[in-house]
């Protein structure tokens, strides 16, 4: 409703401004010799506006084509983010209307919620380890796969490394590998070899939980970025390598740094965006493996905290504050990485 009203308002304002502009223009025309700049600017603005309008009219079909997608995108992606930011300043339990509380949710998050601080710590550990390691692993493996000359084998290797990512909930198998009883692969073999005498409670023990979780996340880290790298590597101009060879590129690492990486910068950036997004959103696989909430919150992430408040405790205002913070940190991180990637090959 409010959106429609806003639109009407905007439409009302436009003609009014136009009229005002015209009035000033005619006034200015009278005093043309004294102050030529203002009316000229106004006239220019008017022409620009008219140009814009005709330009838009000319492209009516283009606007029609983007309309369906843009409407849905607005409704399910853009508006939700705005709502989330708005709700983060309120106290909202779905049943009663939201109540404005200013910055209280944010203050509570940082000064009154120890579990949130644990979650932030865990998220950063995951992001700092699995993000860069996963990213470089994907790049490195894509690079080595690209060196394989046999096309079939190359396709097979790509599938092999990408399979864990597309296999849905196949990560459940790690629950069997690191099961807490004798029948799990890890315990069974360690005991048989006489390394341990009783089963280790892998996911229930805070000292192992984090490490195993990192292994599982790395296992799944060959995502969309990996495919992008594979494709980027295949399309590097072959003649560049020969030219580089003439210019004294001696080994494969020099070749990688001076030729390959600079010519696939765009894919590197795309991969980085995908990695940052996924490494800050870690939750589902850990909830399935280590339980939700995990023992002593050992792998409780910011997203876990968000899910906890959003779907279990129904404190939507508080949950929205967490979502907003996560969003801001993710965007900032991406901007930073964009800057860093500008330095590749220099």
């Amino acid at each position: 409703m409010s959106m429609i009203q806003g639109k009407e308002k905007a439409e009302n304002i436009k003609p009014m401004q136009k009229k005002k502009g015209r009035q000033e223009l005619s006034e200015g025309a009278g005093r043309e010799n004294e102050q030529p700049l203002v009316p000229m600017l106004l006239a220019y603005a008017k022409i620009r506006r008219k140009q814009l309008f005709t330009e838009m009219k000319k492209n009516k079909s283009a606007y029609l084509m983007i309309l369906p997608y843009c409407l849905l995108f607005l409704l399910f992606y853009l508006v939700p983010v705005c709502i989330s930011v708005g709700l983060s300043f309120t106290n909202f339990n779905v049943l009663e209307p939201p109540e404005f509380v200013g910055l209280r949710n944010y203050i509570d998050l940082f000064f009154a919620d120890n579990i949130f601080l644990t979650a932030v710590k865990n998220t950063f550990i995951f992001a700092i380890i699995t993000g860069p390691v996963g990213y470089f692993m994907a790049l490195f493996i894509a690079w080595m796969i690209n060196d394989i000359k046999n096309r079939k084998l190359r396709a097979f290797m790509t599938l092999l490394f990408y399979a864990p990512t597309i296999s849905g909930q196949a990560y459940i198998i790690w629950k069997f590998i690191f099961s807490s009883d004798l029948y799990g692969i890890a315990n069974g073999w360690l005991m048989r070899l006489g390394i341990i005498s009783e089963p280790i409670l892998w996911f229930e023990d805070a000292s192992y939980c984090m490490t195993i979780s990192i292994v599982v996340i790395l296992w799944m880290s060959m995502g969309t970025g990996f495919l992008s790298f594979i494709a980027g590597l295949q399309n590097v101009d072959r003649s560049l390598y020969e030219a580089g060879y003439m210019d004294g590129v001696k080994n494969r690492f020099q070749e990688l740094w001076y030729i390959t990486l600079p010519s696939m910068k765009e894919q590197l950036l795309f991969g980085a965006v995908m990695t940052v997004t996924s490494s800050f959103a870690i939750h589902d696989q850990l909830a399935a493996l280590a339980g939700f909430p995990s023992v002593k919150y050992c792998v409780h992430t910011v997203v876990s905290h968000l899910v906890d408040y959003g779907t279990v405790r129904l404190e939507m205002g508080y949950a929205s504050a967490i979502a907003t913070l996560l969003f801001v940190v993710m965007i900032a991180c991406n901007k930073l990485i964009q800057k860093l990637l500008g330095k590749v090959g220099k």
Partner: protein
Amino acid sequence: MRAILKHKKRANASHSAAGNAVSFLILTVMGLFMALPIILSVSNSLKPLEELFVFPPKFLVRNPTTDNFTDLLTLMSESWVPFTRYFFNTIFVTVAGTLGHLLIASMCAFALAKRKFPGAKLIFGIIVTALMFSVQVTAIPNYLIMSKIGWLDTYASLIVPAMAKPLGLFLMKQFMEQIPDALLEAARIDGAREFTVFFRVALPQVKPALLTLVIFCFQDLWNMQGATYIYSEKLKTLPYALSQISAAGISRAGVSAAVTVIMMTVPIILFILCQSNIVETMASSGIKD
């Protein structure tokens, strides 16, 4: 293996043989790390129950059986809602969502890539930023929006948001840039309307990108439990029903392994079928500064 080594010899001059050997070794080790859990999943789904709980645990199955899969069928025929219903729901949601996504995302991508109009750059910039939105950030407001427009507990709550996924639009737009302008111009001079140019000229040119969108969209929808938006049993999806079966614990360990294998087989097969197209599309996936 010999074949690989032979091929390696023909590699670039700047690549030493020792380096090739090391890289082959690393690939093998990493490949095993990736493959073993998947192999274990398949092997587990073929194990009879007594083999799943044996000390010391066996990695590979000794007496393979399809009991787990047949048990799954029995369990499903006993379920409250006929099992075919879950199956139908998932197929319907996946197909409808994927088709809708293909249509509206490629139409929008076409306009953004091949037409210059005021606002195009801004819109695309916003969509690139939206690549960074994770599902959880928008989950709560999405629930509120769904309940406002009365879509809770309908297929639409699963299908429609998936149609507007930014990743698909982004990839499609980058791929569309490669269509030669002359081709479109020729059609326009012949008097084709813009929608005809899109359907008849542009779409056939971007088949690899379409298949890529299919696999990404399919993956998302195929694995979607949708338990937040859907609460009537007869609208629930296959992954949800299967997760309920798996949740029953130790007695169903075998069945749950069978479930995992079934769920992962479909996307893997689809990926194999579309792989070369996907690689071709991803080549244009870069984000320009």
